[in-house]
């Protein structure tokens, strides 16, 4: 449908318009080609969504690991010291068990704990001379840097245990030296910890890179999704989503509430999980959150793109309501205040001030004379205020009367002085001036109408005689020509001397007179038409015409006009094609004047249209306007601008070899404008196009 319209415009638009339209389309196409395809595709969008979620997850996981490693000092310390810390944390449990078993005297059990593990323990007593005495130790066949010391006392001991000739005392700190085999040959927790720690340590810089990369990827995906929001394949406009019906602030609230719930849930779950569970749970949660936020942002972007998103929010609606209510309230108050007469208003104001001052005086002025003076001042003040208010009221009345059009209203300036008096006198002279101007204007308007009517009468009366006598001469001469033979015969009886030659010359003379009379007649008729048109044009342009606008069915008028002109068109071999919509289209217009417009335009067409061509009369409704379009192909080259054609006395054919006076279009334009319409003339090559525009009226509203 749109394409068709465009095609139509292409056909009928001016050359400039065409070029512009083509260029515009080209620009659009170039701009549209790639991004629109991608943005519109649903599959691409879903894929990007997935990429976003996954990269978010990976990023979060890497981030957590980075933090973990950082916390462990992986970025500042050697691998061994980091590893030792990890192993230390891991070995605390075993160490305690060994200590417990030793305190119970179960040396064998203690040794058993270390047998199949990568850990070995020495128990050392440091004596007073700072000498280390090995009390007990597990077998160790390796030398390692992975070892640490820690001191413990046994606390209360239920048994007396002696190790290596030393009786263990409960309140002495013993040194436990823990060794780890750096090869980790045994398959135990230490091996696992060491493996993981070593691997993570090796990856510690890659992890940072990973985080950066994922953040970048997320950002790209996010931006793409924002751009793609609301785009669909094959649609140029923004397509609303399912959620668009919701107000933006409601939507924000829902998204925020659900997001917050989920976040709290995630934190609770994370606090209950330990170890690597968190490393999975947190990234997954992050991914879900990211998707959730992105969804919201997409909706937000969509509403932004649709424009006026602020207007769709509930808050703005409420705000608007409040604003309206407030304005109504203020207006009401203002009206109430305005309703109070000036004197009352002044008095009220005066007494308001009086009461405030009275309270103030009552509090602070103690002396009697002070109070008296104040009262005196107030009395004088009241008198002055009342005087000014009275004068103002008089002046106000006068200006109001002036505004209402009573130019003869006079202000009573007695009792006024100074500027008030001058103002009053100015108002009086202003009123007189206006009265004079109005009277003159009415007179001149009247004169103008009179002039048109009188001139028209004075011109028409002699013209009537001219036309009639020219007609009479013509008839006589032409009639005589026919009668000549008969006359000749009668003349034969009286004088036989009448020769063939004489008869011939008289006939010739008559023919010549008839020819001249015909010219006279034709030209005087033209003059008559010109006179009538001139009168009409002057009436139409000055608005000196009764216009009674009423609902007028343009379709019917079109049909009627077509019927009136059918025959004339057929004579000129013009095919009149009327196109109008199914439904009735009404405009406010005066049917007679509108017909006059149609008459002028169709008359023009009959005169100037190329024979054997088509004439289009189209009625359409577009954007609140009713368009009536007349289109035809001109017989002559129209080397004249449309604006000039609308001027008076301008005609399409410069050679002026056609009848007509160039007033038709001007009259039509004036008449259309009198009826609140507009007329546009477009000349495009040989195409002559007149468009009448009238505002649409609602057909259902008018009975």
């Amino acid at each position, binding site marked *: 449908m749109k394409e068709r319209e465009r095609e139509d415009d292409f056909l009928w638009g001016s050359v400039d318009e065409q070029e512009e339209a083509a260029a515009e389309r080209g620009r659009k196409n170039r701009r549209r080609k790639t991004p629109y395809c991608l943005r519109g595709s649903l599959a691409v969008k879903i894929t990007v969504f997935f990429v976003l979620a996954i990269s978010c997850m990976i990023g979060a996981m890497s981030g957590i690991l980075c933090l973990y490693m950082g916390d462990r000092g992986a970025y500042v310390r050697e691998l061994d010291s980091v590893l030792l810390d990890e192993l230390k944390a891991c070995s605390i449990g075993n160490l305690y068990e060994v200590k417990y078993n030793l305190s119970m005297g179960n040396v064998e059990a203690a040794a058993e704990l270390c047998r199949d593990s990568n850990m070995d323990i020495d128990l050392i007593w440091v004596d007073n001379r700072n000498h280390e005495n090995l009390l007990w130790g597990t077998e160790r066949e390796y030398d390692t840097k992975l070892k640490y010391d820690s001191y413990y006392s046994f606390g209360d001991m239920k048994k007396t245990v002696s190790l290596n000739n030393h009786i263990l005392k409960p309140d002495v700190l013993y040194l436990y030296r823990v060794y780890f085999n750096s090869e980790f040959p045994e398959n135990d927790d230490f091996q696992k910890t060491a493996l993981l720690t070593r691997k993570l340590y090796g990856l510690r810089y890659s992890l940072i890179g990973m985080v950066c990369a994922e953040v970048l990827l997320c950002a790209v995906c996010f931006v793409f999704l924002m751009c793609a929001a609301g785009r669909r394949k094959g649609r140029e406009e923004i397509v609303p989503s399912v959620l668009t019906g919701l107000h933006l602030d409601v939507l924000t609230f829902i998204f925020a509430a659900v997001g917050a719930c989920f976040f709290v849930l995630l934190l609770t779950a994370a606090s209950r999980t330990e170890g690597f569970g968190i490393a999975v749970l947190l990234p997954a949660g992050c991914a879900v959150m990211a998707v959730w936020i992105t969804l919201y942002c997409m909706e937000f972007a969509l509403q932004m793109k649709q424009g006026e998103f602020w207007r769709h929010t509930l808050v703005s609606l409420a705000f608007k309501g409040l604003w309206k209510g407030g304005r109504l309230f203020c207006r009401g108050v203002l009206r109430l205040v305005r309703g109070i007469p000036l004197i009352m208003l002044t008095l009220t104001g005066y007494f308001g001030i009086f009461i405030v001052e009275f309270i103030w005086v009552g509090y602070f002025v103690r002396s009697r004379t002070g109070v008296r003076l104040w009262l005196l001042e107030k009395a004088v003040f009241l008198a002055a205020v009342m005087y000014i208010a009275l004068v103002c009221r008089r002046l106000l009345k006068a200006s109001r009367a002036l505004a209402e059009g009573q130019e003869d209203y006079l202000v009573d300036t007695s009792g006024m002085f100074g500027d008030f008096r001058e103002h009053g006198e100015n108002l009086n002279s202003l009123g007189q001036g206006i009265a004079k101007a109005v009277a003159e204007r009415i007179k001149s308007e009247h004169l103008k109408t009179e002039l048109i009517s009188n001139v028209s*009468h004075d011109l*028409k*009366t002699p013209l009537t005689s001219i036309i009639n006598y020219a007609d009479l001469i013509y008839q006589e001469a032409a009639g005589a020509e026919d009668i000549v033979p008969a006359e000749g015969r009668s003349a034969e009886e009286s004088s036989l001397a009448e020769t063939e030659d004489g008869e011939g010359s008289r006939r010739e003379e008559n023919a010549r007179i008839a020819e001249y009379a015909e010219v006279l007649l034709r030209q005087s008729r033209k003059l008559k038409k010109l006179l009538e048109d001139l009168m009409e044009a002057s009436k139409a342009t000055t608005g000196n015409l009764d216009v009674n606008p009423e609902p007028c069915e343009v379709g019917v008028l079109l049909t009627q006009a077509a*019927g009136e002109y059918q025959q004339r068109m057929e004579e000129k071999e013009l095919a009149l094609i*009327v196109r109008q919509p199914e439904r009735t289209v009404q405009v406010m217009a005066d049917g007679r004047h509108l*017909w006059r417009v149609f008459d002028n335009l169709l008359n023009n067409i009959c005169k100037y249209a190329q024979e054997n061509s088509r004439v289009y009369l189209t009625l359409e409704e577009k954007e609140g306007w009713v368009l009536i379009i007349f289109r035809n192909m001109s017989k002559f080259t129209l080397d004249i601008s449309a604006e000039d054609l609308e001027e008076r006395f301008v005609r399409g054919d410069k050679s002026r070899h056609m009848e007509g006076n160039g007033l038709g279009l001007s009259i039509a334009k004036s008449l259309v404008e009198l009826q609140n319409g507009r007329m546009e003339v477009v000349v495009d090559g040989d195409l002559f196009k007149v468009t009448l525009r009238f505002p649409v009226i609602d057909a259902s509203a008018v009975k």
Partner: protein
Amino acid sequence: MYNILICDDERDIVNALKIYLNDSAYRLFEAFDGKEAVRQVKSNDIHLVLMDIMMPEMDGMEAMVKIREISNVPVILLTAKSEDSDKILGLTVGADDYITKPFNPVEVSARVKSQLRRYMQLGAGNRSDEVLRCGGIELDDTRKKVSLDGETVALTPTEYEILKLLMQHQGKVFSPREIYQKIWKDLPYGSENTVAVHIRHIREKLEINPAEPRYLKVVWGQGYKCEKTFSP
């Protein structure tokens, strides 16, 4: 033999009219102002008055009021004033027809003839209820005959039906669609054009000036109607 009074302050126009109306059936009287016209009507048995409006001594309107006091003769106003308001005023004061200057002589003689026929035939009155009347148009449905000022006019059956419909409901405006439905007994489907063409033809046959019809009026933008006339 009909007596016609021609009244205009322009002698040339009076003379021209006298030439145009030069017919053995008419006897022509002339007057050059309103007073004279009234006098002529009083003293002669005038059958029709052709009168200008703007004249010295007494203007056409005033003269017409005076004439109406004494006689019922048809009065055709002949004037250069072409405003609608002037026409309406003239017709309400009592004129029977209105011709604007510069006039077409053929039109003048046609209108004169029409007014005379109506005036003379109204008294004779062979009026039956079967006959529909609108001004000078008579439609006799029993004989399927239409006449204008007593002269039979040949209409095609469709034209006849349309005219009958309009004359049966004088004053009512019919849209082209309605007319099509009533005459062709079918929905128009965009062929309302035909109605407009037919009506144009009827107007050409029944009206002296089809562009300014007296009886079959075009209500632009609404439809067509047969003017309601108050025939005595």
